C-alpha cells in the first residue's frame, strides 16, 4: 500500500482568490461549507469532479490545488 496521501493548498488559494469564504467556495462547486472544511482539514478527499470544479473556481491547475505527497514528508 502506498505511504502517500492527498494534501491540498485550498485554504491558501482560497485566501489568495479574494479571501473567498468556505461557504462561497462550497456554493460555487455544489457542496456544503462543512465539506469544504473537511477537505481543508484532510478529513475528506473530494470526488474527481469536485476537485476539478474547485480548481476551476480558484483558477488554478489541479495539481497546484491538490497534491499526492508522502506521509510525513
Amino acid at each position, binding site marked *: 500500500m502506498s505511504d502517500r496521501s492527498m494534501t491540498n493548498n485550498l485554504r491558501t488559494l482560497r485566501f489568495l482568490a479574494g479571501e473567498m469564504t468556505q461557504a462561497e467556495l462550497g456554493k460555487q462547486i455544489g457542496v*456544503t461549507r462543512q465539506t469544504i472544511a473537511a477537505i481543508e482539514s484532510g*478529513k475528506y478527499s473530494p470526488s474527481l469532479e*469536485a476537485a476539478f470544479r474547485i480548481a476551476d473556481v480558484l483558477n488554478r491547475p489541479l495539481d497546484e490545488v491538490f497534491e499526492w505527497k508522502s506521509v510525513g514528508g
Partner: protein
Amino acid sequence: MLPQERTAWVWITALCVVFGTYFLFISVLQESAEQVSFLTRIGMLATALTTLGLVAGAEKLIATARTNSADTPFDERDELIKLRSSAISYYVLMAGMIIVGCVMPFSTGGWDIVHAALFAILVAEIVHSIFIVIGYRRGLHV
C-alpha cells in the same frame, strides 16, 4: 454539528434507552418465571416502537425549526458517509438474520426468536448511526 450527525446521535441514544428498557423488562419478567401474556408483550413492544416514533418525529421538528435544515443540501460527502454506513449495517443485519433464521430455530422458538430478530435490527441501526458519526467526526476517505 450537521443535522445528519445530530440525528445519528439522537437515534443512537433513543434506540439504546427505549429498547434497553424494553429488553430489561422482558428479561426481568422472564427471570421471575411469570407467564407473560401475549397482549402484555405486544403492548410493551408497541410502546417501545411508539416512543421511538415520537422521538424521531420530535427530533425532525426541532431540527427543521432550529436550523432550517430542510434547505441544507445533501452533498457528495453526506451521500458517501450514508452509503458506507448503510453497507456496514447491512452486513451486520444479514449476520443477525442468518443466526435468527438458520441457527436459532434448532434450539429455541417463539418469543426468543422474535426478540433475537428485534435485537439484530436494533444492533444494525445502532451500527448505522455510529458509522455516520464516525464519518463526520474522523473523516471519510474513499
